[in-house]
């Protein structure tokens, strides 16, 4: 009897104390793992500046982000694969896409005893992920990497087990460089993978790659950097082997800036330009034009203004490229359309 009483009293006390302290606003969002490092930094910084506001972002995958905002179980979503027209139509209200940063998806690999940086081409990556190239010493890999001693280890493909915008960026690129991939698998957030094992989130894929000798996967750049996983340069449309850096990602966005569609849904994979990194992408935050909770809307709009301004300065430190000024101007115009009252 005593223990039950104790537990109940404890809970009641916690609840009362909690609700008393709970005068701050809590805004829930969910979505991509791709921008999770920068978003969690942003929300943390914003919370420090505005202690009465807490923005709770859960990185459950782009697919989950889209579903949750469509069913309105969260206030905002986040995705690296823009919503399709069908998905937008299915939502109960108009949803705006707001690009927040530019990022890169890199091929990460873990080959025992190989320290050298391996070069990849689009068609080669497609063949590996199609399951056609199965060993690290395959001639297709050796051709691009003359001079590197490649072992006869089996290649273990690691992909995402959850619906992912990072996946969307990756397969969007593969479909552009490999007609076979385009026909056989297609482009989407949850493709029917021809080969490999699945990890949950960018975190899961990095974890699996670091733990599995002979593995190759794809993750957002920061996960490769923070985890010190080897990643290689990829051949771009101009034929140059370019490694993902803030500069090469910015170069990829250069052409898109001029031709930005009004709803900001644009793909910049396989971009032209000598110094462009071919697997770059915008990542978007999703907000309703006319949400029910205007107080939360006001907070989010204020947050977005900060993120598009001062927040961009934090991007490079985490391996993301800041948005071009032209894009920010267009976004602020769209932000003004979000109803806050």
């Amino acid at each position, binding site marked *: 009897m005593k*223990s039950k009483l104790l537990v109940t009293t404890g809970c009641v006390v*916690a609840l009362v104390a909690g609700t008393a302290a709970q005068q701050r606003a809590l805004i829930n969002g969910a979505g991509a793992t791709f921008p999770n490092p920068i978003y969690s*930094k942003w929300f943390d910084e914003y919370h420090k500046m505005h202690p009465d506001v807490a923005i*709770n972002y859960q990185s459950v995958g782009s697919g989950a982000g889209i579903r949750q905002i469509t069913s309105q179980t969260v206030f905002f979503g986040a995705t690296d694969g823009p919503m399709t027209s069908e998905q937008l139509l299915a939502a109960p209200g108009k949803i705006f896409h707001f690009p927040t940063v530019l990022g890169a998806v890199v091929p990460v690999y873990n080959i025992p005893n190989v320290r050298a940086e391996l070069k990849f081409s689009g068609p080669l990556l497609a063949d590996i992920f199609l399951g056609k190239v199965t060993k690290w010493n395959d001639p297709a890999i050796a051709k691009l990497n003359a001079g590197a001693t490649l072992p006869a280890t089996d290649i273990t493909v690691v992909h995402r087990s959850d619906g992912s915008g990072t996946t969307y960026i990756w397969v969007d690129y593969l479909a552009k460089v490999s007609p076979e991939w385009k026909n056989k698998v297609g482009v989407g957030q949850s493709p029917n993978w021809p080969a490999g094992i699945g990890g949950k989130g960018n*975190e899961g894929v990095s974890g699996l790659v670091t733990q599995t000798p002979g593995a190759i996967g794809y993750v957002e750049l920061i996960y490769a950097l923070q*985890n010190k*996983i080897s990643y290689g340069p990829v051949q771009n449309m101009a034929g140059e082997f370019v490694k993902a850096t803030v500069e090469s990602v910015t170069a990829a966005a250069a052409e898109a800036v001029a031709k930005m569609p009004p709803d900001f849904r644009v793909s910049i994979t396989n971009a032209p330009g000598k110094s462009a990194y071919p697997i770059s992408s915008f990542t978007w935050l999703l907000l309703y034009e006319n949400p029910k909770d205007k107080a939360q809307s006001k907070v989010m709009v204020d947050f977005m203004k900060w993120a598009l301004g001062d927040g961009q300065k934090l991007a490079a430190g985490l391996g993301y490229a800041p948005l071009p000024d032209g894009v920010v101007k267009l976004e602020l115009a769209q932000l003004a359309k979000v109803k806050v009252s």
Partner: protein
Amino acid sequence: MSRTTRRKMLSSAFVGFCALSVLLALVPLALVLFFVISQGIRAINLDFFTQMPKPVGEPGGGMANAIVGTLILAGLGSLLAVPIGVVSGIYMAEYAGTRIASLIRFAADTLNGVPSIVIGVFVYGIAVLPFKQFSAMAGAIALGVMMIPIIARTTEELLLLVPLTMREGALALGATRARAVFTVVLPATLPGIITGVVLALARIAGETAPLLFTALNNRFFSTSLRQPISSLTVQVYNYAQSPYDDWHRQAWAGALVLVTIVLLCSLMARLATYRLESMHRQ
């Protein structure tokens, strides 16, 4: 070799196999406990119990919100499950043999066997979607639903064990059924019922799957019932799959705390059961 010798040898071999089985079962137990303790101890410090999670990639931080979250979810789940479970158990014991009691028993056993992930899917449909909100309440409902059958069956068992004389004595003195049960029979079985609750708590404290779609998770300290809430299990799950060493360490620490909670509950329940058994054997 005579037949007798061969039979004896087979018998010894069999005994050996049984003893070996016990060892085989204890080996993974020792391994798991060893790893959880050795890895978890390193990351257990005051920070772990008092700090919130830090942004992705930054070292430090803790799981204070997750610990509180687990306690809240378990407490709330009990508030839901104990009344329903105990009173159902009372019905099953008092009216044992009726069709309805058998039906309730069947439902309780079925509920017990439903995989926790299916319960998560179900509670998402009835408690998250209609309110368009992930919430601690939904998480507590999911856990509570899982606790009900354990509490109900334990209550039923214990009530059936109470000697007929007690019940009849009360009834002979003119008490109504309700009075007899609530003032005489139930108090006698209270320690056992608490044991059942503790057992149910041990069962759900380690559950992750049903919370994934109901309580979601929360980076911040939150005790609001209508908001997502953090929990040890989901946090350990998220951290375990990450590539960050610091998060792995914290995941082990979280696992250690979880295992400690569950083992303490199991130990308490078992000791209480022994006492009850020895009491009833007189």
